[in-house]
């Protein structure tokens, strides 16, 4: 509980502002002068084809990579993250498509990974009862009912795994939630559930960044759309100004 309060105070509202971000890998320029601002209570969709620079952008926001140049502001304060843990502590949590959870670990061990509740400070015994009951309770909030959270997380469906990762991020104080292709591996019904959850979180004031190549899913829930092409931001649109058809035509040009 201690760290939760700490995170809350660090991030009052969770606004991100990236200005002129550049990143190169050797001679390949993955991002060229990309500027994006994201606000709490909105869903921001980053759209683009493979190799457009979406992953690089996500990795910079989440502290996996550091930008070569440009400014990164969280709540108006300039920051440089040198690892993902620092971004997590600042309330910025990323749910990756394939790396969100560890299938071989049990559900509750996944939930508390890296944030284990400790009973005895010297020997760091895990408070399993607390971990199990909290995991169950938090999952229920996302419409996932699991009787036995000691089960391996690999036995969960794709949608349930996404919900587990999202529930975990929120529980540990995320104010900014970045989702990397959350629906691309899901069926129709599960996609709908995950997207509904995102809308609910938005209404609670979470700043959501959604990376997707499924335009229909993005348009259904998104408020703002950023289109990346060959590492450059080629357009940003408000939902009222575009349709899925227009977005698709810009992307495929």
């Amino acid at each position, binding site marked *: 509980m201690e760290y939760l309060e700490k995170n809350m105070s660090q991030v009052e509202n969770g606004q991100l502002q990236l200005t002129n971000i550049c990143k190169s890998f050797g001679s390949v320029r993955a991002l060229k002068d990309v500027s994006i601002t994201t606000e709490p209570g909105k869903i921001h969709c980053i759209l683009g084809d493979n190799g457009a620079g979406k992953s690089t952008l996500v990795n910079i926001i989440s502290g996996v990579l550091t930008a070569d140049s440009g400014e990164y502001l969280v709540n108006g304060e300039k920051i440089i993250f040198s690892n993902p843990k620092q971004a997590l502590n600042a309330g910025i949590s990323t749910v990756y498509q394939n790396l969100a959870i560890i*299938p071989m670990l049990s559900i509750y061990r996944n939930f508390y990974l890296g944030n*284990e509740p400790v009973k005895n400070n010297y020997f760091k015994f895990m408070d399993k009862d607390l971990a199990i009951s909290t995991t169950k309770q938090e999952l229920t909030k996302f419409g996932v009912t699991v009787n036995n959270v000691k089960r391996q997380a690999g036995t969960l469906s794709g949608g349930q795994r996404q919900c587990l990762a999202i529930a975990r991020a929120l529980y540990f104080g995320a104010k900014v939630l970045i989702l990397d292709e959350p629906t691309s591996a899901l069926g129709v019904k599960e996609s709908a559930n995950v997207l509904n959850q995102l809308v609910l979180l938005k209404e609670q004031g979470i700043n959501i960044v959604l990376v997707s190549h499924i335009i229909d899913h993005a348009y259904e829930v998104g408020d703002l759309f950023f289109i990346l092409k060959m590492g450059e931001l080629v357009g940003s649109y408000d939902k009222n100004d575009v349709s899925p058809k227009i977005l698709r035509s810009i992307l495929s040009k």
Partner: protein
Amino acid sequence: MTYLKKIITRPESGALAGLVFVWIFFSIFGHSAFLSLAGTKSYLQVSSEIGILAIGVTLLMISGEFDLSIGSMIGFSSMAMTLLTVQAHFSMTSAALLTLLIVIFFGFLNGLIVVRTGLPSFIITLGSLFIIRGITIGFSKFLTGRTQLGGLETANGYNIMSFIFNNNIQVGGVAFPVSILWWIILGIIAFTILNKTQMGNWIFATGASKETAELMGVPIEKVKISLFIVTAFCAWFIAMTQTTTYGGADVLRGEQKEFTAIIATVIGGTLLTGGYGSIIGTMIGALIFGMVRQGIIFAGADADWFQVFMGIMLIIAVVINGIFRKKYVTG
């Protein structure tokens, strides 16, 4: 059905079935000697030695790494301690502690090179297997001109070392070596760390998916390096037991022990690829190892057949582990 599934998916259940089979097999073919207290003592002694080593190997394997140099570390530890005692006139206890520090440093180096280069630990520690063995033989020959050294019984501090590592506990007129007790104690400690603590969660996560673990803020490099140090400690522990038992050292001591420890671990249900395993399983694996090794002698067969038996059990264990993991664990 779900109850049965629960039992089958536990990593140690295959090993338990194997243990029952081996025990029944040698109860029939090993004559009364296998079932006697003296027979029990003889296989428990073998099991405890391999078991202590396998505890370290299991923790490391669950974190996704191997250490092939532990056999060489046994040889090094026993020779270094004997040289320090007999040649440099250290007391045996300080020689043992100094040796422990050196071996911990070896473990640290193994771990550091593995995490910094990102190369498979199999290759890195295959290198250290030869380096450490070579150093042991080289120094021993250079300093004494010999590859075997004795004379520890009269050394200062032998009594304390012997009390810790080479004691006996009388049960029903049979002297059970204290290493069995150490095996159980170290097993309980390792079991507690793995299943009850934050570190345990980190070990599993590091082995199952180091990328995800790192994204969640687990210090995977620290986890791996400390487990290389733990395996080195286990090798040192066995070396102390052997050295006090034989009263001296041999540069070749511990040869192939790295493989037998891996066999006990894998028979115990731990996955070679990491992320899944159990200390209880490994202890059962070591028990099977000891039973087969001594049971074959009691059965009157040539002891060499032991290798065939263990090899077959290893392959069966790996196949079964693979099937169950696919079926239940990864979903």
